C-alpha cells in the first residue's frame, strides 16, 4: 500500500517536471505571450506529459534551483569557449605542413552518476573537435583523441573531462 | 558573372535532372536506380522553385508588417513542390520495399540478372 502511494507520488513528480519543461520550450518556440498561444501550449504540454511522463525522472534529471541554472549557463559558456578553442587547435594541426597528430584511444573516468549527466558530458566531449566519445561503460568513457597528450587515465580525465565535469557535478548534485 | 547569377539555379536543377536520368538509364543496381529517381525528383523540384523566384524577393509570408506584397516570390511553385516532395518520398518508399522483396526472391539487386520475364 505504502509502496503504491510512493509510485504515485513519483509519477506526479515526473508529470509536473515534464510538463514544465515542455511548456517552457513551447514559450521559447512561440516567443509570444498571446493568450491563445498559452492555452494551446498548456494543452499540448499536458497531453504529451500525460502520455510520456512515465519514468522520465529516472534519467536523472536534476531539481531546478537558481544556483543550478546559473551553473548550467556557465557550463554552456565554457562549452562554447572550448569548442572555439578546439576548433582552432584542430585547424592548426590540419593545416600545419608536418601534420602534428598522434591519434589514439584513451579511457577517462567520471564521477557523474546519472545517465543524462553522462550523456551530456559525452556529447560535450564529442562536440569539441579533436575528441570523440565512442562509448560509455559504467563510469568509464572511451574516447578517441586526435593528439594524445597522456595515456594515463587520471591525467586524461583532467585534460578532457574535468573542465565540463565540474559544472555538471553541481548541476546534477 | 551575370550569366552565373541568371542561370546558376537552372544549371543546378538541370544538372541534377541530367544526372538522375543518366543513373536510371545506365546503372544496373536497383538501389542505385532508386537513388537516381530521387535525384531526378530533387532536380525537378529545384527547377520549379527557381521558376517562381523573383529577384531580391522575400518569402510569401506576412510575418511582420511592412513587407511589400509586390516583392514576394510566387507561392504557387512552392505549393506544388511541397506536393511533389511528398509524392517523391512515397514512390521511394514503395520502390525500396519492392527492392527488399526482389532481393529475397533472387538474392541479387542486379537488374541484368533478373530475367524471369524478358526485359
Amino acid at each position, binding site marked *: 500500500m505504502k509502496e503504491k502511494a510512493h509510485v504515485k507520488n513519483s509519477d506526479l513528480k515526473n508529470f509536473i517536471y515534464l510538463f514544465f519543461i515542455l511548456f517552457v520550450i513551447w514559450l521559447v518556440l512561440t516567443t509570444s505571450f498571446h493568450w491563445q498561444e498559452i492555452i494551446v501550449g498548456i494543452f*499540448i504540454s499536458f497531453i504529451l506529459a500525460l502520455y510520456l511522463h512515465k519514468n522520465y525522472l529516472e534519467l536523472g534529471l536534476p531539481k531546478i534551483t537558481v544556483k543550478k541554472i546559473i551553473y548550467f549557463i556557465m557550463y554552456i559558456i565554457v562549452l562554447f569557449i572550448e569548442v572555439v578553442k578546439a576548433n582552432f587547435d584542430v585547424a592548426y594541426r590540419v593545416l600545419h605542413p608536418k601534420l602534428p597528430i598522434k591519434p589514439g584511444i584513451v579511457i577517462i573516468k567520471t564521477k557523474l552518476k546519472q545517465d543524462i549527466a553522462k550523456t551530456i558530458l559525452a556529447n560535450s566531449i564529442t562536440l569539441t573537435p579533436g575528441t570523440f566519445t565512442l562509448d560509455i561503460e559504467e563510469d568509464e568513457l572511451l574516447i578517441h583523441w586526435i593528439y594524445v597528450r597522456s595515456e594515463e587515465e587520471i591525467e586524461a580525465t583532467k585534460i578532457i573531462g574535468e573542465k565540463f565535469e565540474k559544472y555538471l557535478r553541481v548541476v546534477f548534485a | 558573372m551575370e550569366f552565373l547569377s541568371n*542561370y546558376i539555379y537552372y544549371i543546378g536543377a538541370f544538372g541534377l535532372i*541530367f544526372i538522375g536520368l543518366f543513373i536510371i538509364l545506365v546503372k544496373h543496381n536497383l538501389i542505385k536506380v532508386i537513388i537516381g529517381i530521387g535525384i531526378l525528383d530533387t532536380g525537378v523540384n529545384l527547377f520549379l522553385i527557381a521558376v517562381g523566384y523573383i529577384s531580391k524577393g522575400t518569402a510569401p509570408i506576412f510575418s511582420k508588417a511592412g513587407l511589400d*506584397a509586390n516583392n514576394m516570390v510566387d507561392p504557387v511553385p512552392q*505549393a*506544388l513542390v*511541397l506536393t511533389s516532395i511528398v509524392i517523391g518520398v512515397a514512390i521511394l518508399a514503395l520502390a525500396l520495399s519492392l527492392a527488399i522483396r526482389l532481393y529475397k526472391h533472387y538474392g541479387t539487386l542486379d537488374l541484368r540478372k533478373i530475367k524471369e520475364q524478358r526485359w
Partner: protein
Amino acid sequence: MKKIISLILLFIICLGIVFCLQDIPFGAAKTKVGHYYIDNGREETGATNIVTSVVLNYRGFDTLGEVTILFLAAIGLGAVLATLKKKGKRQIEPASLILKTGCRFLFPLILLFGAYIFIHGHLTPGGGFQGGAIIASAFLLVYLGCRERKINEVANKITESIAGLVFIVMGLIGLTVGGHYFLSNFMPKGEINTLFSSGIIPIIYIAIGFKVGSELTGIIDNLMEKS
C-alpha cells in the same frame, strides 16, 4: 554503347530545354495567379503564410490527393511486405547509453516541436507535412535508441484513418452547410496573425500532421520489422 546512346538522348533533351528556357527568364515577375494569391490571400483565407493558404485553400484538392498518395504508399508498402515473416524477437544488441538516454530525453521534446510546426502552419513556415515528418523522425529515434519498445500498430492505423476522415469531413461540411463548395473555408477567419485564425486551415493542417506522422512512422515500422 548504352552509355553513349543515353548521353546522346540526354543531350537532345537538354537542347530542347535550353530552347525553352529563353522564355522563362530567371528572377522576373511574371505570374498572374501567384500575384492574385499574394494580393488577396490574407483577406480570402486569413492565413499570413501564403504558401499555406495556397496549399490548403486555393489548391486544397491537390493536398487531399497528396495525403492520399502518402496513404497509398504506406498501404502499398504494407501489401508488398505483407507475406514476409515478422521477425520474432529482434536479436539486436542494445543501443549505447548515449543514444538511449538521448532518445528518452529528446522524444517528448521532438514531439512538441513537431506539434509546434504543424499548429503554426498558417503563421510561420512549416505545416502538416513538415511537422508530421518531424514526428516520424522522433519515432525513428525510438527505434534506434529504445529498441525493445514497439509502436502500437492499431493505434497508428486508427490515427491515420481518423486524420484522413477529418480532412474529408471538413470538406464535406463545406459542401453541405457552408457555401456549397467542397473544401470551402466556412469557419470564421478570425484576427489575422493570431493562432486561432484562418478558419479550417489549422484544423486540416493538424489532421495532416497526424496523418503524415502516423503514415511515415508506419512505413518505417513496416520496413524495420519485416524481413
